[in-house]
C-alpha cells in the first residue's frame, strides 16, 4: 500500500475530508477557510469556496453528489449546492442550516440530501432539515465538546454514535433523541468514531493513543489497538470494506493499519509531514484518503 495521489492546493492544515458516492470525488476543508472539491483520479480541483470563518473542521458530501456541507468556528453548518456553471458563484447559493452555540466539529448527511446531523463543541448533536433549516431533534448527554459522529449503515436503522471530550462514546436513537448506549473506557478525548460495516460494532480513536472496538450487541469494549511505542493520539479511524482492517491516522504523522480480529498492527504508512487529521476509506473500498496538517491529502491504495 502506498500513496497513489497527492492532492496539493490547500494553503493551510487540512482538517476534514469526505468521499462522494461516485467513489472518485473528494471534498476537503482546511484551517484557512477553504473548502475544495477534487477529482481524485486526475487530482484536478473541481470547485473551491472560501468560508467566512477559519478552522473549517467539518465537511461532508451529499449522497446525491450535488451538494456539500461544511462548518467550523462559525458555529454553523452551511450547505453549498455544487454547480458546473462557470458563471455561478458558489458562495451565493449558500444555505445556513445548523446553528450551534459553539464550534461545529462534525457533520454528516443522513441517507438523503434533506437531513444533516451535526456535532458541536457545545456538547450536543442535532438533526436538521436542510430545506427549512429547522431543528428536528437534539441530542443532549455529553458532558463536554462532541468531536465526532458516524451514522449507522442504512441496513441497521436510525442510530448514530458520537464521541467527545468527556471520553464517552454514546449511541443515540435518531427518532427519540434518547441515548441508548454509552461507553466510557477511553482515557482521553475521543477524536473519531466509525461504525463497523455490519453496523453491529464501532471503532474509536482517541488522544490516549489507542483505538478501541465496541460491540453494540454485547454492549462492551471487545478490543484495544495499541502499542507501547505509539504515544501520540489517533485522530481519525475507518474500516476497510470487509471490516478486517482498521486504518488509523495519528498525531505522529503516521497511519497504522490494524488487523481488527487479531488486534495486531499489520503495517505502518509514512508519507505525511505533519499530523494526520482525517482519514476515510472510499465508498467501494479500493482506496483510502488521508488529510494532514502538512496541507496535503494523500490517496493510498
Amino acid at each position, binding site marked *: *500500500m502506498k500513496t*497513489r*495521489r497527492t492532492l496539493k492546493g490547500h494553503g493551510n492544515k487540512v482538517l476534514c475530508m469526505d468521499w462522494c458516492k461516485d467513489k*472518485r470525488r473528494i471534498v476537503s476543508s482546511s484551517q484557512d477557510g477553504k473548502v475544495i472539491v477534487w477529482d*481524485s*483520479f486526475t487530482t484536478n480541483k473541481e470547485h473551491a469556496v472560501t468560508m467566512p470563518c477559519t478552522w473549517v473542521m467539518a465537511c461532508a458530501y451529499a449522497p446525491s453528489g450535488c451538494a456539500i456541507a461544511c462548518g467550523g468556528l462559525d458555529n454553523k453548518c452551511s450547505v453549498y449546492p455544487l454547480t458546473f456553471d462557470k458563471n455561478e458563484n458558489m458562495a451565493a447559493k449558500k444555505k445556513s442550516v445548523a446553528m450551534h452555540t459553539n464550534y461545529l466539529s462534525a457533520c454528516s448527511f443522513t441517507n438523503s440530501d434533506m437531513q444533516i446531523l451535526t456535532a458541536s463543541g457545545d456538547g450536543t448533536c442535532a438533526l436538521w432539515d436542510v430545506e427549512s433549516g429547522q431543528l428536528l431533534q437534539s441530542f443532549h*448527554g455529553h458532558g463536554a465538546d462532541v468531536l465526532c459522529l458516524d451514522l449507522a449503515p442504512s441496513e441497521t436503522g436510525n442510530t448514530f454514535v458520537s464521541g467527545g471530550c468527556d471520553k464517552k462514546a454514546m449511541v443515540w436513537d435518531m427518532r427519540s433523541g*434518547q*441515548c*441508548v*448506549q*454509552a461507553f466510557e473506557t477511553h482515557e482521553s478525548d475521543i477524536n473519531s468514531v466509525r461504525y*463497523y*460495516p*455490519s453496523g*453491529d*460494532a464501532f471503532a474509536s480513536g482517541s488522544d490516549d493513543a489507542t483505538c478501541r472496538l465496541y*460491540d453494540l*450487541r*454485547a*454492549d*462492551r469494549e*471487545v478490543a484495544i489497538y495499541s502499542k507501547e511505542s505509539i504515544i501520540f493520539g489517533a485522530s481519525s479511524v475507518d474500516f*476497510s*470494506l*470487509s*471490516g*478486517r*482492517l482498521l486504518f488509523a491516522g495519528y498525531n505522529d504523522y503516521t497511519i497504522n493499519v490494524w488487523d*481488527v*480480529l487479531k488486534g495486531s498492527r499489520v503495517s505502518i504508512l509514512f508519507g505525511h509531514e505533519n499530523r494526520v487529521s482525517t482519514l476515510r*476509506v472510499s465508498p*467501494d*473500498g*479500493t*482506496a*483510502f484518503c488521508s488529510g494532514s496538517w502538512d496541507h496535503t491529502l494523500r*490517496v493510498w*491504495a
Partner: protein
Amino acid sequence: MSATNNIAQARKLVEQLRIEAGIERIKVSKASSELMSYCEQHARSDPLLVGVPASENPFKDKKPCIIL
C-alpha cells in the same frame, strides 16, 4: 437551590443508567464470532485486503501501452 438541582440531575442520571442497564445483551463470544464471520464473508470483495489487479484499480498506475 443547588441541592435540588443536584438531586434532579442525579435522578436523571439514574433514570438514564436504568435504561442503559435494561437493554438486551448477548455474550461476547457470540458477538465476536459474528464479527469474524462477517469479515470472512466479505473478505474476498475487500480491495484493500486482497488487492485488485492494477487494471481494475483506478488509482494504481497502469503499465504503459506498447505500440506494436
